């Protein structure tokens, strides 16, 4: 059995009924009439691996999992794409990486065991952390994103500091890893399983060395990767992974977590990140936390929660005109709610939206102030 047939069998894409529901919801298909998930499945079934792996179709998918929500046969198309990309990568077919592949290169550099990073320079004295604690805060790539995307005026470090501030408020002084590496999410979803596994092994080793019992994560991608993909590819490593919003919601009822009211009524709309919503099922927690801030009202976008639309690019690959159109559409949708703020829970959503808004061709109707959920919460702490 060839590698393509094997992947098709493994991911159940034979169950595709050719009904086209995926196409009607797929954000890429809505903007690129040449593309359709079922068309990709047809091409995979009817062509040879050599032909299929050469196809550009392979790299168009955002792996946002919207199609799975609609599919009557429960075809996990994003999983199929992830696996065929890894098979294609073995045949030396690679995606077009944005930013000249800098971010992927950084991830591969992090697979070097001798690497000794200086990644904790942002931890200010007012943030309480400890050398050994039951809780470990997995920071993610925020120091790197902050340095690389400075021109977008993105403050991802503020988000990490805010996460620690919030954890301190609920009585947790988390451990931070001096040599934490990228979780490997982007390498995994662009087919580089080999380097993903190297990163995962190094991270698991560091995490175990820290002696923690629970890992708190604020980045949705790191959360899904640590919670689902690490055990899937390397076996259970025996440490619970919690998303920070879940932990904070548990502390809302006691007096540990109280937020200052806004002086004037403010309306916000929330962008559900794919990895937090559809992948991890965390829809209510961010909303409960926002609602805990007085004089803040959430206005939902027409497409929210399970039907939320992706921010247009995934894993720093294949950012093109279609991505820009998806981003503009989504921003217009946010703006049409008349909300004052668009709250996102993922640094990448924020980066992609800011980048789209920076484009001189983006109309005013797609410009809305964009803030990070964790930063907003920490800034409103009493």
């Amino acid at each position, binding site marked *: 059995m060839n590698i393509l047939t094997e992947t098709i069998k493994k991911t159940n894409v034979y169950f595709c009924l050719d009904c086209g529901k995926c196409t009607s919801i797929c954000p890429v298909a809505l903007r690129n009439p040449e593309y359709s998930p079922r068309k990709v499945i047809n091409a995979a079934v009817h062509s040879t691996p050599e032909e299929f792996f050469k196809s550009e179709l392979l790299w168009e998918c955002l792996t946002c999992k919207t199609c799975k929500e609609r599919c009557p046969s429960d075809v996990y198309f994003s999983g199929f794409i992830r696996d065929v990309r890894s098979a294609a990568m073995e045949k030396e077919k690679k995606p077009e990486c944005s930013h000249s592949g800098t971010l992927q290169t950084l991830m591969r550099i992090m697979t070097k065991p001798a690497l000794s990073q*200086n990644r904790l320079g942002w931890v200010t004295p007012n943030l309480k952390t400890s050398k050994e604690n039951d809780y470990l805060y997995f920071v993610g790539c925020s120091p790197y994103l902050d340095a690389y995307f*400075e021109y977008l005026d993105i403050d991802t470090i503020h988000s990490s500091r805010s996460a620690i501030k919030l954890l301190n408020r609920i009585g947790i002084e988390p451990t931070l890893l001096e040599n934490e590496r990228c979780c490997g999410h982007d390498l995994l979803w662009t087919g580089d399983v080999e380097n993903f596994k190297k990163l995962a092994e190094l991270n698991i080793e560091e995490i175990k060395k820290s002696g923690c019992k629970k890992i708190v994560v604020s980045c949705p991608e790191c959360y899904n990767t640590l919670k689902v993909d690490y055990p899937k590819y390397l076996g259970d490593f025996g440490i619970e992974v919690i998303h920070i919003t879940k932990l904070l919601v548990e502390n809302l009822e006691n007096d540990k977590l109280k937020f200052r009211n806004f002086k004037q009524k403010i309306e916000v709309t929330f962008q559900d990140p794919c990895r937090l919503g559809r992948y991890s099922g965390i829809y209510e927690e961010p909303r409960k936390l926002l609602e805990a801030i007085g004089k803040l009202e959430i206005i939902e976008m027409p497409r929210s929660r399970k039907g939320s639309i992706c921010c247009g690019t995934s894993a720093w690959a294949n950012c093109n005109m279609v991505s820009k159109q998806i981003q503009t559409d989504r921003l217009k949708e946010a703006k049409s709610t008349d909300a004052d703020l668009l709250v996102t829970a993922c640094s990448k959503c924020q980066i992609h939206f800011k980048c789209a808004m920076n484009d001189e061709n983006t109309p005013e109707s797609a410009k809305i102030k964009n803030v990070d959920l964790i930063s907003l919460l920490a800034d409103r702490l009493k």
Partner: protein
Amino acid sequence: MKKESKFEPKIVTFICTRSSHAMQKRRELKFPDNVKVIRIICLGRINPSFIFKTFERGADGVLLIGCPIDECQYSFGSKLAEEHLFTTKKIGNLLGIDKARLKLVNISLTKDLKFKSKVNKFFRDVKKLGPSPLSNR
């Protein structure tokens, strides 16, 4: 004899066309064998990806040679290179790459910018640092 003195660092140099002419004309320097030279049209062509890819592939040092900002024939090229270098150094610091492993040196057709001594100092510094932690050696 100390072990470090035997170590020959792998050095990659990105040099712009105009600077390579300037080097030839001024007969400033002949690169030793351990230096791989990549000629690019203008130093403004580089971006952080070029430099990190070079380190990822095992370079111990990366040297950028370009024109001073006021002499760049693309007018914006040298400035762009400096901006990219700034971002690269910031990220390089996070990754623990010693800042002495990456250097930009200007060469001018008309002015003496102490090019030779700066480049030789860079070579000596990289040799003193030993193999890069990213070089798999």
